[in-house]
């Protein structure tokens, strides 16, 4: 039967660490890449739309029309990039991408305000980036609404018949950083686990040290666990680094239990590491191993886990596939713990699935490894 001796286990782990330390690429992947990704995602990349370039054609030139433009600026989401005489100029600016929205206030705007029918203004959007346009459109509507409200309230104590009161939970300022950073934990785990481990066995094959390893008096379980231990350590350090940097640099809240986060991260890591080891054993060449790891683990974790793109709006077949991606569950866990502050009572399904993933991953790694050596 498989034996598990602490001294031998640690010896394998030590050997793996020494090898890792000499491999610059692996170290870059393990420590530099997570920080680079965090900085890129934290600082540079955002879906938040602000400071929208507004082009204005004010044909009315009255107090009222100026107030409307001011309402846009005062909302904090727009700045007036250009004032045009004719709407053809505005069209040109939209085409060049200099302005994202064109506001056209027709002659007689102020006069029409007093009529029953009301006045109308036109907003031309650059719709090519649907997402940004949709958000900008919402802000434009809100600005007009605020303005309309002010006009209505001027004379009389009238209010809108139906007042929507929106409250946003978990991420009150709707900042995309709060969405990205907890998700990044999952993506980086995948890079570490799959891409790093995928090299560990294929490297032995390529260098011809596999036979030596097989000849040493260590059990397969000891080899597998010994090889995984250093990576588990790296992965957990990365979780800590990302969580700390995220909280300190980017003000991401950690509302739930750090202990639960570490426990479930360990489970997710063990499963992914096992998966990486299986890939590594199957591929036998480092190049193929990295490519396989990229296609089977990293890309799905990036695209189909809900990290950036909502699973809800994907077509049914892709939604079905997403259930098979462990990162999907881990993402619910990280966002739940960071942002929602929920615990085991809410996350137990995901937690159990992750523990099952860890068990399957480790079991598969030991099984595949057995076959390899004999």
């Amino acid at each position, binding site marked *: 039967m498989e034996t598990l001796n602490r001294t031998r286990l640690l010896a394998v782990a030590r050997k793996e660490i020494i090898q890792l330390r000499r491999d610059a*690429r692996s170290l*870059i992947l393990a420590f530099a*890449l997570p920080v680079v990704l965090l900085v890129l995602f934290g*600082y*540079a*990349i*955002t*879906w*938040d*739309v*602000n400071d929208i370039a507004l082009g204005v054609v004010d044909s009315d030139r009255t107090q009222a029309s100026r107030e409307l433009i001011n309402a846009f600026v005062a909302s904090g989401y727009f700045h007036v990039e250009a004032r045009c005489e004719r709407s053809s100029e505005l069209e040109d600016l939209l085409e*060049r*991408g200099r302005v994202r929205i064109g506001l056209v206030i027709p002659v007689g705007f102020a006069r029409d*305000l007093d009529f*029953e029918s*009301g*006045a109308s*203004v*036109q*907003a*031309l*959007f*650059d*719709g090519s980036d*649907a*997402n*940004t346009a*949709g958000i900008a*459109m*919402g802000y*434009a509507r*809100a600005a*007009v*609404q605020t303005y*309309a409200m002010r*006009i209505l309230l001027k004379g009389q104590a009238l*209010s*809108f*018949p*139906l*007042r*929507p009161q*929106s*409250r*946003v*939970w*978990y*991420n009150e300022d*709707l900042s995309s950083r*709060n*969405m990205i950073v907890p998700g990044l934990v999952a993506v980086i785990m995948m890079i570490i686990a799959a891409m790093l481990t995928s090299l560990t066995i294929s490297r032995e094959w390529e260098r011809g040290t596999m036979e030596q390893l097989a000849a040493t008096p260590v059990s397969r379980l000891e080899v597998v666990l010994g090889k995984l231990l250093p990576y588990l350590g790296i992965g957990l350090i990365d979780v800590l680094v990302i969580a700390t940097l995220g909280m300190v640099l980017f003000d991401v809240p950690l509302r739930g239990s750090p202990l639960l986060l570490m426990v479930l991260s360990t489970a997710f890591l063990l499963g992914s590491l096992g998966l990486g080891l299986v890939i590594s054993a199957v591929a036998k060449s480092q190049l193929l191993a990295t490519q396989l790891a990229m296609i089977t683990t990293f890309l799905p974790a990036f*695209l189909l886990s809900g990290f*950036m*793109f*909502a699973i809800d*709006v*994907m*077509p049914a077949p892709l939604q079905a596939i997403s259930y098979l991606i462990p990162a999907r569950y881990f993402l619910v866990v990280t966002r739940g713990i960071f942002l*929602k502050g929920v615990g085991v009572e*809410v996350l137990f399904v995901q937690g159990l699935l992750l523990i099952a993933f860890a068990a399957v991953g480790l079991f598969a790694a030991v099984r595949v490894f057995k076959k390899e050596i004999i």
Partner: protein
Amino acid sequence: MGQGERRFERVKEMVQKELRQILREPRLRRLIFLSPIIQLVVFGYAVSTDIRHTRTFVVDGDRTRTSRALIDAFTGSGYFRVVGRSDRPADLVSALDHGTAILGIEIQPGFTRRLESGQGADVQFLLDGTNSNVATVVRGYAERIALDFGRTAGDVPFAVPVDLRERAWYNADLKSRNYNVPAVVGTIMMLISLLLTSLAIVREREIGTLEQLLVSPLTPREMIAGKTIPFALIGMLDMMVITIVALLWFDVPFRGNFALLLSAGLLYLLPALGLGLLISTVSSTQQEAFLATFLVMMPTILLSGFMFPVSSMPKVFEWLTLLNPMRHFLEIVRGIFLKGVGIDVLWKQLAALAIMGPTILLFAASRFKRLAG
């Protein structure tokens, strides 16, 4: 035969040899044909920022015809789908905590009475903000539906003094697919140029055939041409395939000039192939080339405006993107596909590519020559 003709013959021979070699290798064949298909499926289907059928939980404390009509206005819009109803607000909290609903609508008792008496009624929206992007758009839709409903609900239709007439140009239905699919041209051409060029050169180095090439009568410049032209051809082929699939399968509009797209594609290949060549000079194994490609591709895509708008980045990063050929090319591709603009609008981006291409290519070639020589 003149000097130039002989040179042309030699490069042609080598390009043919390279193409044969590439197409013989099953792994490369898969990469060339599968990666555009996978990316098209992902960016045509999976990566959508459109909002539909948002999971909504309803707590209707009023239970009148009017409150039901309000909920119907939500489901009828197509943006919302009711996944649960309850009388107790605690259930709403739990639905948000578990993530089974993204939006909660809470209607207080007395809603209809207040609405009809003209006092003004409140409707409460609770949003799960964990996906900030979805939440922002959902909030906008929800508030608009509520306001529109309120306008027509009372006995006297409520007149709003200002009416905003919106027209979205270039992409009237605001489909994110129309924005994403053309951009796949940019990422695929970059991927092909970086990965295949560097792998092909490094492989020759690994198996030792690069030395054979060096002793052949080819000059280093001819060798570089012979090594990169096949991938330029493949890149152009991929570009045409993606364009055709985008038009016929995904119904993406094409409003501009096809010849301009082709010339821009050629211009874009120069910096891309240059970067591939550069990667080959810093990697000694195919494995290293692959990792280097990954490390270069990642920031190139993230800082290109492919998924995240450049205009929302902090100024420093916005300037940084000016050095990214993909950023310029994506502006060209999207401009041609969606806006139908021409050189008069896109000359800046074209000029940037025209400067970047030869610069990177010459730098890479000089490094390559030094290593080879």
